[in-house]
């Protein structure tokens, strides 16, 4: 669909506005005008650290949104691909760099500033390769077989890292991962890293928005409408689904690498099945088919988590922070029943209604999960 006037630049404008908001939040933390910090906005519940984590997971969830909303497939092992990125970066910049690489190649390239960046690329290639090997045969099958395949892969990756002995550090993980830098410019302290993380997140969002509005995106929407019809019109279903799946895992890998360099410690805990479920909840909250929903879905989950951690014991007697999953389970069920297109879609409808309550939706929104045919 050809958009008219300023709408042709809708994506760039949207990304631009979002970037300005991100910049303002970062500036608030860096400059601290009149001693006002970012965490003061919410009375200390949401900290700047949370904002960086939201950026990291936004990168993952954008991929998951494309996969679930546009290719109609669900990945229950996305945290595993996130883990590959994190572990490749962590291992290759610490143990491997110190022992193997520097011995093999004289000149200690393992300590050069570009080595970690190269390893982020390596993580992307490895993750994408594994996703391709799994996805190619599995996506040929109709139905939700990718969910099962990714579930299996995610858990295998998790157990391998947990039982990996000294190579992966077992339950303790890999520590003292170096910070990222370009030449002598180090992405640290925290506010510098914040800009790096969000630059990546915005780039990923921009790329995905463009894909969704391109030939591939139209093909994917056709698949959502009717696979048979799409196939008849010459849409290569399997190829499109596979591309989106591989792309989503590559996003996860990038975010994983950035996580490793932010946390400087990688252990298996956040990468299990529960981690994958968290990601699905975030994607579902933001809106399954909505790229714009991703950062909001992640942010909402984080805010709820932080608030619950602080206040849950007063809501439910004897409940601690670990009981937050009750709320998340409930939230996931309610959202899927009452607004399966997610919060961003509901907000869009509410906005349209506010502008003109009498008018029905003129055109069906593009990012819509279709009803079941029967």
């Amino acid at each position, binding site marked *: 669909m050809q958009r008219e006037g300023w709408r042709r630049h809708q994506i760039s404008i949207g990304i631009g506005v979002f970037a300005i908001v991100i910049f303002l939040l970062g500036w608030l933390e860096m400059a601290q005008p009149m001693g006002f910090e970012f965490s003061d906005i919410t009375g200390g519940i949401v900290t700047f650290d949370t904002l960086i984590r939201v950026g990291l997971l936004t990168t993952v969830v954008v991929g998951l949104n494309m996969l*679930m909303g546009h290719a*109609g497939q*669900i990945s*229950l092992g996305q945290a595993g691909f996130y883990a590959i990125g994190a572990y490749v970066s962590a291992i290759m910049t610490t143990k491997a760099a110190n022992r193997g690489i520097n011995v093999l190649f004289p000149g200690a390239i393992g300590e050069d500033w570009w080595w970690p960046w190269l390893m982020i690329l390596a993580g992307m290639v490895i993750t994408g390769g594994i996703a391709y090997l*799994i996805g190619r*045969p*599995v996506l040929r*099958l*109709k*139905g*939700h*077989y990718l*969910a*099962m*395949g990714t*579930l*299996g*892969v995610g*858990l*295998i990756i998790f*157990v*391998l890292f*947990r*039982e990996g002995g000294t190579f992966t550090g077992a339950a303790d993980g890999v520590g003292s991962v170096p910070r990222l830098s370009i030449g002598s410019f180090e992405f640290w302290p925290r506010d510098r890293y914040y800009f790096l993380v969000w630059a990546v997140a915005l780039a990923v969002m921009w790329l995905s928005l463009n894909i969704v509005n391109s030939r591939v995106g139209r093909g994917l929407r056709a698949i959502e409408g009717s696979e048979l019809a799409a196939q008849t019109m010459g849409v290569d279903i399997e190829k499109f689904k596979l591309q989106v799946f591989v792309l989503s895992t590559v996003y996860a890998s990038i975010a994983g690498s950035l996580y490793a360099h932010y946390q400087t410690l990688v252990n298996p805990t956040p990468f299990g*099945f529960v981690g994958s*479920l968290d990601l*699905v*909840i975030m994607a*579902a909250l933001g809106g*399954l088919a909505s790229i714009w929903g991703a950062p909001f879905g992640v942010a909402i989950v984080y805010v709820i988590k932080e608030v619950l951690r602080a206040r849950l014991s007063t809501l*439910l007697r*004897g*409940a601690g922070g*670990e*009981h*937050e*999953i*009750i*709320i*998340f*389970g*409930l*939230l*996931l*069920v309610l959202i*899927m*029943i009452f607004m*399966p297109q997610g919060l961003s879609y509901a907000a869009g409808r509410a906005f349209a209604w506010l502008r003109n309550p009498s008018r029905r939706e003129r055109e069906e929104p593009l990012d819509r*999960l*279709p*009803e*079941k045919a*029967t």
Partner: protein
Amino acid sequence: MAALVLLVAIVLYLGYAKGFGAVQYVQLVLDGIRGGSIYALIALGFVVVFNVTGIINFAQGGFVMSGAMLAVAFNNLDLPLPPALQLALAVVFGVAGTTVIGALVERLTIFPARHSHTLTLIIITVGVYIFMQGMALLVWGANAYNLPAFSSLALEDQILRSGGIMLKAQSLWIWGTLAVVLVGLYFFFERTILGKALRACAINRRAAELMGINPSRMSLLSFAMAAALGAIGGVVLSPATRPIYDMGLKLGLKGFIAAIMGGMVSSPGAVVGGILLGVLENVAAGVTRAGFKDIFAFVVLILILLFRPQGIIGGGERGVEQ
């Protein structure tokens, strides 16, 4: 075929390196069949729901946990009953309570969203599982509990020994239960109107509806049955393991893999798949490391999806086409 021979050779070599004899293998296989029978019960629940509704019910593991935990809770009550009667009542309470939970889950979450995309319904069942696990954590805490063994009525089970092979009496209870459930299911599906209606709904939902079968009620029935099957598995397993709030995740996933091995639509396939999976993972873990036990099940899952998505045994194309 060549791959199979290679696999057996690797297992034998690893076993040889550990000094395993025939006794150890028999022991591993026996224990594997015990675990596999539980997977089979759970897998039957997956198959019933998938056949009727097309939903992969990730809450199935929650039903297993709730069956075990409710039975434990009842058994720990201070009632003036002989221990054997209290344990029997606890088993009934665990299974009946979970069946009600299963029916409630269908009415409260699946029914309101019945016109939604299957993907949405699957995500709903994931949410239900998370909720159930959270509630169990809230009610029972993170402790592992005990249920006395059915024969000895004590925590220490009777152990039958023969030629170096040990067999817990509870294993016999598990196999007996599986046999009774299978016979019961056979009669239900073959000899009762309700069972035949359920089968009709599985074969062709639309046609069944035209014949006056209410698919919404069949969906309710399938969830209740799945819950009962899962709870039975959880209850008979309890004395052999220690029930804990998060036990459902692993058991649910294994049961699911067993269902896939059987082709997802076939009940006999699910049983064979479950037992096969139990034996495979137990022998594989026995000759390598116990910590790797969970990996083998998922490796099996991937291999099945890659090479035989229609299941190892029968199953047919319907599961793939669904």
